[in-house]
């Protein structure tokens, strides 16, 4: 199987396969929709494996199908794309398995699975496409999938929050599209590969960043993300860990880290926004008592951190950011799924009403602890190394003040993570009696915790992948390929 077919299959299996799910639902086979989803997403994940080795050796493939004048479907298989595809689909597979135990109580199963699969399909399309129009297209498919999923429980209040999320991300994305059009006006192309090394104007950059920041929930545009916590826990997990907020990060990495060039001033601006976002939301997380909102603010904070790494435009910073995407994906996915189990067991999201859960839910507690340690950046965990790389990348780029403040934020993270573990799992039990979750759910949580440990032990592998994906080297390769 060629690289091209392989990559196309990775995109089309979830994207087109998702259409089968409502058909199954209409055919009365509601029970089959869940396993089918697992199969589709899992297949997408397994198909990314054969791509890993070639890209590790520095391979890069690019082809494009012209559609209409300057609009063409261009696909690129490189380390960055494969890395994102692999991480996202792996986490999504686990979440889909978890859903089997979690979602069966509600009546709209086919719709749920349909949109989850479509969501992942959009993500796969996004990571492989390098035409700005198609980037936008998949970006919006993800947004509308997320709209339906956040409002899944259909409470009037929840729907309003879903609409809010959709409007904010759609608005940002449309502005971003406007920015793309300005870029097009300047250089006459929508191909990222052709835009490589060109500096873009400030207005276009501001517009594009509006889209990126709204999608990745960075501080002025972040409010939809904590509100999105009204969705089922699997969905929040999907949004935070695997797909949605990572889209903004990926978009930034794809467009700017080895593509278009931005001025140093703009770079400083982005760094400051990212730092402010990381710091402010860490403070917010400290005060929050709703477990899902606390985790959501933590995501906003970590996303800010990742942006710091990406926007440093240095080798170490870039590696740190990619590692961060992976480590945060596993750990935050695990945390949200733990939160889901806890919510199932205690019927509350308020942390002050929990306590002493470690006795009732030992596996969940351990998994939560491992994931929290990773997020907080405790040394042997992957989270630590990624943070370390980000900070050293910042220093390398000469942003010493920002690096210092970033360390302060990391301390805050440690503080609220430990506090939440303490409140939820230790101490006296304050609620009714609870039981451990359904086996399939607990297993998934355990696997995610295991993956967190595994990435820590085998850090060498993702590190290698990330360093291959690094912009500078890619740029060299690209000049070879494109000449």
């Amino acid at each position, binding site marked *: 199987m060629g690289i091209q077919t392989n990559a196309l299959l990775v995109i089309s299996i979830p994207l087109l396969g998702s259409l089968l799910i409502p058909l199954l639902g209409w055919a009365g086979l509601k029970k089959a929709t869940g396993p089918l989803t697992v199969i589709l997403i899992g297949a997408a994940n397994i198909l990314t494996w054969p791509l890993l080795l070639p890209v590790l050796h520095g391979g890069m493939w690019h082809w494009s199908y012209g559609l*209409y004048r300057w609009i063409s479907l261009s696909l690129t298989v490189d380390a960055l794309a494969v890395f994102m595809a692999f991480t996202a689909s792996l986490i999504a597979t686990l979440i889909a398995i978890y859903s089997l135990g979690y979602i069966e109580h509600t009546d709209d199963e086919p719709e749920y699975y349909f949109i989850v699969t479509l969501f992942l399909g959009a993500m796969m399309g996004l990571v492989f496409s390098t035409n700005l129009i198609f980037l936008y297209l998949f970006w919006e498919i993800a947004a509308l999938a997320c709209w339906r999923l956040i409002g899944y429980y259909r409470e009037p209040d929840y729907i309003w929050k879903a609409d809010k999320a959709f409007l904010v991300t759609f608005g940002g994305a449309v502005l971003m599209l406007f920015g793309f059009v300005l870029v097009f006006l300047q250089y006459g192309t929508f191909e990222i590969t052709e835009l490589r090394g060109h500096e873009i104007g400030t207005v276009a950059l501001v517009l594009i960043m509006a889209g990126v920041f709204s999608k990745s929930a960075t501080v002025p545009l972040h409010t939809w993300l904590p509100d999105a916590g009204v969705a089922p826990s699997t969905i929040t997990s999907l949004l935070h860990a695997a797909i949605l907020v990572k889209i903004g990060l990926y978009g930034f990495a794809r467009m700017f880290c080895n593509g278009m060039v931005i001025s140093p001033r703009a770079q400083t601006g982005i760094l400051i926004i990212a730092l402010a976002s990381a710091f402010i939301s860490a403070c917010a997380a400290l005060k929050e008592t709703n477990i899902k909102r606390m985790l959501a603010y933590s995501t906003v904070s970590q996303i800010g951190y990742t942006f710091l790494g990406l926007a440093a435009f240095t080798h170490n910073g870039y590696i740190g950011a990619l590692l961060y995407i992976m480590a945060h994906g596993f750990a935050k996915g695990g945390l949200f799924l733990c939160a889901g189990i806890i919510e199932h067991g205690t019927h509350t999201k308020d942390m002050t009403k929990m306590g002493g859960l470690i006795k009732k839910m030992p596996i969940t507690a351990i998994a939560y602890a491992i994931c929290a340690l990773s997020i907080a950046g405790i040394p042997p965990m992957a989270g630590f190394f990624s943070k370390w790389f980000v900070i050293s990348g910042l220093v390398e780029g000469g942003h010493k003040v920002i690096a210092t403040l970033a360390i302060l934020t990391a301390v805050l993270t440690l503080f609220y993570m430990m506090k939440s573990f303490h409140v939820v799992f230790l101490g006296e039990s304050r609620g009714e009696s609870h039981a451990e979750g359904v086996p399939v759910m607990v297993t998934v949580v355990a696997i995610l915790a295991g993956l967190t440990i595994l990435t820590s032990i085998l850090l060498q592998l993702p590190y290698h992948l990330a360093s291959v994906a690094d912009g500078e080297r890619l740029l060299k390769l690209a000049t070879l390929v494109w000449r």
Partner: protein
Amino acid sequence: MQQSMRLFLILPLVAAILMPWASKLGRRIADVLVAVTGLGLMVLSLCFIPYAGTTSTFQLFGAQFAVDGLSLLFLIVVNAVAFFCILYSIDYIDHYGGRAKFYALMLLMILGLNGILLAQDLFSLYVYLEVASISSYVLVAYNLKFDGIESALKYLLLSVVGTGLTLMGISLIYLNCGTIGFEALKAVLSSIGIGAASPVFLLAAGLFMAGFGLKAAIVPFHAWLPDAHPSAPAPISAMLSGVVIKVAGVYSLIRIFLYIYPAPSQILKIFLVLGIISMIAGAIIAYFQSDIKRMLAYSSISQIGYILIGLGIGNPLAIMGALFHVFNHAMFKSLLFLNSGAIQYRTGTRNINEMGGLESRMRVTGATGIFGTLSIAGVPPFNGFWSKLFIVMGAVVAGKYVIAFLMVFFSIFTLGYFLLIQRRVFFGKLNMKWADIKEAPLTMSLAMIFLAATCLLSGIFFSQVVQSVIEPAANLLMGGK
């Protein structure tokens, strides 16, 4: 092949004449007759796609008609939407009664619209415009309730003034150059040039702008539309909003100002200004409506604004976007009106505050409603996205950044108020009042599914649509430059 274009006029006429006898023979026979005619017309219009790049003329009873790229695009829109609306009305018209008359009037409306597109001079255009309008006045009043009749009267009175102005323009044109044929006029205008030499043409242009602008419901002339659309039966609202305002209004404006007149910059500026006002005013007023069909009606005004802006910018990209938006708006706005009709059919209300959670009871209506919403807001991969993208790109290329930004902003706004509809009507907890309502009947559901599929497929395969029908039409308009 070209001679079969006669069928665009003959088929609906003959079917309309046969309708009373068909309904005497049996209800189903009338249904079949009208559906077959509609399907035939749609297939016929699609058959001509390969000939989009050429102008083909044909004779009917000695009269000259012609189809060029521009007419063909509109023919496809008219006949496709008409077929879906006919399909929809088969089950829908049950509670209105007068089935045969309804079908006959609808067919005559199609005849009129096709005639507008095939006509080769200004006066024939006017005559067919009246055929379509007179049928639509009666169809708006079809429920014979107070609201229907009063909005039909309002529509009629304003239209009469509009067509009166148009006729004045025609007589001035004839007075000035002794011809009213399109081609002849085009030749005369290009030989003498427009502007200081003949201000009469500009006066006539103003009259046409007002007259056809009224038919297109551009903002200062829009007063009839928000009344006429809600009180008409749903398939008629869909036809009015999807097709009639475009053919009677936008097509005539395009034909006159971008084809006959060599697109003088003053007129394009007026297009631009009116378009912006329509876009903004329509969207803002729509936001405050609680009647679902009124909201859709105002949003039609807003979308017509987009089309006008595209025409007013006047570079190939924007014109292509505008023409594509004509196609797209016909599809998704008809779809949305049919959705609202299905809701009204089952719940008997149009007030969006009384609905809620209907999605769980009306699956097809709910799902197709989402398609319509996303299309109109310009969310990819639906078709509305591409046309808006083209118009915005045209504006940016022309250096009109503010206008481009306004369009972008109002597409967010559009999504905002359509999400409001979604939230109050479909999404959300089921209002217990509607616990035992059912999905709309078969043909209604089918029509909605077809339209939704068109919205999605023409978005995914936009390049084929653009290349096969939109580009020839745009080339025709840009040919003079």
